[in-house]
């Protein structure tokens, strides 16, 4: 089953009285357990598409199904619960809660899903170990480097065992070496946890790692390349 299905999805932003189309007639299937990269120039609509898939924004038209659930008719609370259980987020600026330690940041989504304490502890410790930060569990984000913060963000995104992890330009604020490391980590996590990663990026390194590559221009999907197709071409 596809992880995400978008049918005839469109989104227009209002700039004062003027409507600015961000996405037009998007038809897209994001396959389960794949590393999908959405690429395109700045302003092409990558982030808007990611926001719609992540259920933090609503389309003006069309239909979105995430993890088998049509999400448009869900109430705000139901959408919040849905995101907490099924969708992980990795942000360009890491967006960790500065008052919480690395451990607590990873633990937070599990508190929202009311995961039992013992299971929570085991899962957080495993994830922090998996991203190589077991020894920095007690550090707050201000005491971590950019790369370390993004590792914590990856662990947090994976904490509730979501069906889908969305990453918006996850390497944009990192140097190329750290970016490469983070990319490798995300790829490793995606494979180990068999979860769908959808990444918006114009970083060629990230695009090269994609199972499925979605190219978007002026709010329209202009190309979808599947790994098997690309393999055939190669």
């Amino acid at each position, binding site marked *: 089953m596809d992880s995400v299905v978008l049918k005839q999805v469109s989104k227009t932003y209002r700039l004062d009285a003027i409507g600015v189309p961000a996405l037009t007639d998007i038809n897209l299937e994001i396959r389960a357990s794949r590393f999908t990269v959405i690429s395109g120039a700045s302003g092409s609509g990558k982030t808007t598409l990611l926001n719609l898939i992540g259920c*933090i924004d609503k389309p003006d038209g069309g239909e979105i199904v995430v993890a088998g659930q049509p999400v448009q008719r869900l109430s705000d609370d139901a959408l919040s619960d849905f*995101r907490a259980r099924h969708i992980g*987020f990795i942000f360009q600026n890491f*967006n960790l*809660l*500065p*008052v919480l330690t690395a451990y607590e940041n990873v633990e937070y*989504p599990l*508190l*929202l899903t009311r995961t039992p304490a013992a299971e929570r502890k085991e899962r957080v410790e495993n994830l922090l170990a998996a991203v190589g930060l077991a020894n920095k569990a007690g550090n707050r984000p201000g005491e971590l480097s950019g790369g370390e913060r993004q590792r914590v963000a990856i662990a947090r995104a994976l904490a509730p065992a979501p069906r889908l992890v969305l990453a918006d330009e996850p390497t944009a604020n990192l140097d190329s070496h750290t970016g490469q490391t983070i990319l490798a980590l995300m790829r490793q996590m995606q494979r180990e946890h068999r979860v769908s990663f959808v990444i918006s990026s114009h970083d060629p390194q990230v695009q090269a790692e994609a199972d499925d590559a979605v190219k978007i221009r002026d709010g329209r999907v202009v190309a979808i390349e599947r790994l098997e197709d690309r393999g055939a071409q190669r």
Partner: protein
Amino acid sequence: MKTFAIATRNLLRNRRRSLTTLLAMILGVQTVLLFGGYSRNITYGLQTGFVQVGGHLQIQRQGYFLYGAGNPAVYGIADYEKIVAAVKRDPELAPMLTVVTPSLQLGGIAGNFAAGVSRTVFARGTVVEDQIFMRLWNDYGFPGTQRRLALANTGPDAAVIGTGVARVLQLCEPLQVKNCPQPEAAESSSKPLPADIAALAAQESKPSNTPTGGARIELLAASARGAPNVAALNVIKAENQNVKELDDVFVALHLAQAQRLVYGADTPRVTAIGVQLKHTRQIPAAKARLDRLLTEQFKDQPLEVLDFETLNPFYGQTIGLFATIFGFIAVLIGAIVLFTVSNTMSTAVVERTTEIGTLRAIGLRRSGIRRLFMCEGLMLGAIGAVLGVLIAMAIAAIINRSGLTWTPPGREAVPLAIYVWGELRLLFGAVIGVIVVAVLSAWWPARRAAGMNIVEALRHV
């Protein structure tokens, strides 16, 4: 758990802002408590004064309070000694009582005929031994010792007058009243007295000054039979009553003397039976029992029981005045706390917009965001209230030990005491009030935070 932990850490994150907000709340709580404690001091001071003189309750003949001052003979209580005895031995009342004592109030004219001056006065005859006991009542623990009752251990014709009476009757010198200006001799427009009358007056003026340094006055009053009666009184002291209107008419004398003046050889009566209780809170129970007792055992004469608040309207007016000022201050302080906390929370919401977007994105409901900010408001309110209470108690303790005094109406100077410790209603009111105001202040910013669009919040720089 996490909500409180995050709220606490967020408050610590902006220490300076949190401290400023706390300071505003602490000052607010302190102001409310110290003023509340001060007004309690006024209330208790006045109450103590009234209770020490007249008791908590008075049994009077019906109508005396409104009309009897002009005719004590008609409104006198017959068989008052039986009533006093019945009250004292009543098993329900006895455990509540400290003193039950009769008194007789009358209006009259006091004259110093040697000086050719007189004035209307308001005289009160009391049982001095009972009055001494009544003045020991100090349920609120006012520091200091009670002034000695001047009539104690004096002869049956002894009297104490107000310094205003002494001034008008030109008795300041023999009574050694300080700061008592005497008028220059007024020019008499009348003809000189006949020689025999002048000689009689001169003779009368000689004993005016008693050997003990006091003075003699004559007190003229209407007797029960309607005829004028005169009592010669030995004034042993002039005491300042602190309220000019009272000081200018005050005469205190022994009950027996007052009764002789009004009732002569007839069976003496009194105008009131004062009932002093151990505690003011016993008034409703004692009054109810007294009403039953009087109805059951003394139904032959119409009697009523009045409490000290009814008898002294000034007490209620003063409490009302202070309650109004207290309410005004509390509202003002509440408004300041409201705007301070609201401003702090609004700033926090703006600063943490991206965090709000992140929390919403990873699945926290709108109600969770609202709860988080209201929790911060609640904690600010609770911490501010507790610190405010502690500091107010410390300041009150310092003031109470400073030796400052104030003079309640009708009483001598008493030590200034701020009642905060033990005033549970005041304390809980201030604490709950500040917490409620703080939570209400946080409500609007919290609502705004919860209503944020997630995408816009995440875009916030």
